[in-house]
């Protein structure tokens, strides 16, 4: 129960945020907070395979971007009233969140199924390079989609429609993202405590032993990969709504690197780690970028130092127990 206190405080603060900052530039602060939560969601999805499954996927942006593009493409077709396809029957676009967002998750999940089925035949170094390469393939695919803006991307006419909610209102959108984030965190806490999560962590720690115990490890890893991809697709659908813009930059490889940084920064294999990681990473970006346009020359060495001296993420750094946890989180 003691662990729940900080969480309850964070939740209260998050609920109160849009009112507390009323005096400040509301759109700006709520916008950043929403972005942090969306990136946290992407981080949570990656954490499932990276932190709990020990799979170093360097292509997570592909699923994130695919989710964003599904929302963008459906919305464009709805705006211009052009059918998406006329064969075998006419399918139109949509701006309904209840249709578009699950479709974004479905598309990202299917993509994860294909990429995962191929990539998971390998492990270690190969897995890293292959996931990166496949993500780049998806990147080039969207770059070559001239009908949807190609390299320049696609502007959305409006955010998705979700029943009585007006998502165009930053505050309502913020609360919806917060609710989704809380739901995903709850489901994930159940998932990792369930048999499936236990098996996944067993595979991370010793795959050969799990196989010897009779678990079909490939199938477990693939299911985790697909769940992770679908969740990243949801995060992508949200980011497309927040920025009202979709472009191949959402799936470019540095984005995949950012997600890994978010997971590791927050501490791998910790349920709430990506929350802290996303907050820290985006705020750091925000602060450094305000200070100098060449902020990456500072961020780069920070990452290197973090890897060399603060392996367990910020939790461990704060708690000052660097050395003891080092082995714990390793895949």
């Amino acid at each position, binding site marked *: 129960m003691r662990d729940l206190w900080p969480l309850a405080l964070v939740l209260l603060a998050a609920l109160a945020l849009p009112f507390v900052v009323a005096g400040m530039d509301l759109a700006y602060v709520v916008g950043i907070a929403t972005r942090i939560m969306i990136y946290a969601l992407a981080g949570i999805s990656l954490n499932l395979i*990276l932190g709990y499954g020990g799979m*170093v996927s*360097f292509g997570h942006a592909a699923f994130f971007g695919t989710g964003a593009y599904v929302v963008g493409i459906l919305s464009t077709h709805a705006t211009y009233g052009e059918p998406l396809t006329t064969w075998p029957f006419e399918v139109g676009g949509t701006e309904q969140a209840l249709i578009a967002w699950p479709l974004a998750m479905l598309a990202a999940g299917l993509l994860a199924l294909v990429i995962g089925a*191929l*990539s998971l*035949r*390998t492990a*270690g*170094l*190969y897995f*890293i*390079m*292959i996931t*990166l*390469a*496949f993500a*780049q*393939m998806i990147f*080039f*695919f969207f*770059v*070559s*989609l*001239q*009908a949807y803006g190609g390299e320049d991307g696609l502007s959305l006419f409006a955010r998705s429609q979700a029943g009585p909610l007006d998502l165009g209102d930053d505050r309502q959108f913020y609360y919806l993202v917060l609710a989704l984030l809380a739901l995903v965190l709850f489901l994930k806490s159940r998932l990792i405590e369930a048999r499936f999560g236990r098996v996944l962590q067993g595979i991370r720690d010793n795959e050969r032993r799990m196989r010897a115990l009779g678990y079909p490890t490939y199938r477990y890893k693939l299911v985790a990969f697909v769940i992770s991809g679908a969740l990243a697709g949801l995060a992508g659908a949200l980011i497309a709504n927040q920025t009202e813009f979709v472009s191949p930059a959402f799936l470019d*490889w*540095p984005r995949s*690197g950012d997600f*890994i*940084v978010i997971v*590791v920064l927050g501490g*791998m294999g910790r349920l709430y780690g990506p929350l802290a990681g996303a907050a820290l990473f985006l705020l750091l970006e925000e602060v450094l970028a305000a200070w100098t346009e*060449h*902020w*990456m*020359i500072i*961020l*780069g*060495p*920070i*990452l*290197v130092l*973090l*890897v*060399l001296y603060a*392996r367990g993420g910020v939790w461990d750094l704060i708690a000052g127990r660097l050395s003891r946890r080092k082995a714990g989180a*390793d*895949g």
Partner: protein
Amino acid sequence: MLLLIEQVLNGLQLGVTLFLLAAGLTLVLGIMNLVNLAHGSLYMVGAFICASVAGATGSFLLGLVVALPATALVGMAVELVVLRRLYARDHLDQVLATFGLILFFNELVRILWGPRALFLDGPSWLSGTVEILPGIPYPAFRLAIIVLGLAVALFLAWLTTRTRLGMLIRAGASNREMVSALGVDVRWLYTLVFGIGAMLAALAGVMAGPIYAVEVGMGESILILTFVVIVIGGIGSIRGAFVGSLLVGVVDTLGRAFLPGLLKLFLMPATADGVGASLASMAIYILMAAVLIWRPRGLFPAHA
């Protein structure tokens, strides 16, 4: 026919460029078990150094002569300061730290040379064309790249299989402890290998400079192609890197040149252009997937 030969040669030229990168990278991957994302940064640094020396003196060759050892020094410095501490870490740590290095190098280059792309002209005595077959002219510079790349491949084969240094490199790869127990300073051996890899990357950057633009971020797009090469060829295998590079170079170039045209035989011209361009940019990844299904550890696995 004429076009086909020209495009195959262009593919070979891209292939040997990739090989120069892949050879260094696969050695580092295979021997030190290190994922070095910053390998592409060395390619960029080499190209930039050459472009600015050549721009200041007007001599491409002088730029080349300066860029190679300078980049090797940069690479060895990076190895000494950062990468050396990562050999014993897991791959995730290596990915993160070298990702940080990429951000650092890209920004450093942007500060030193500005955000605009530089232009690098090849040497004037290679600016003409050569008639490779009667009636088929081909740019001399591209031909020189192919010849130089093949020469480097032969040199590397000789280095790893016929020299004492090559023997030590291979020994260090299979059993690090034993080699150091025999009195070899493995740490310096690794630094040296890294320097060689950095120099090859710089050579690739210098040769790509006159053909593609010398710009920030040029290292990463080619790095990912290099990864595809290594996945196809097998980690740690120079032979695999060679075969993989040429395959990727030729498939990529031919796909871009001919796929849209081929599809026009079956599809409407507008659709064929779109689908063809998409397929062409995805061709090498599909090739990689096919190799992966057939041989998950690459065509020439080094440690079978």
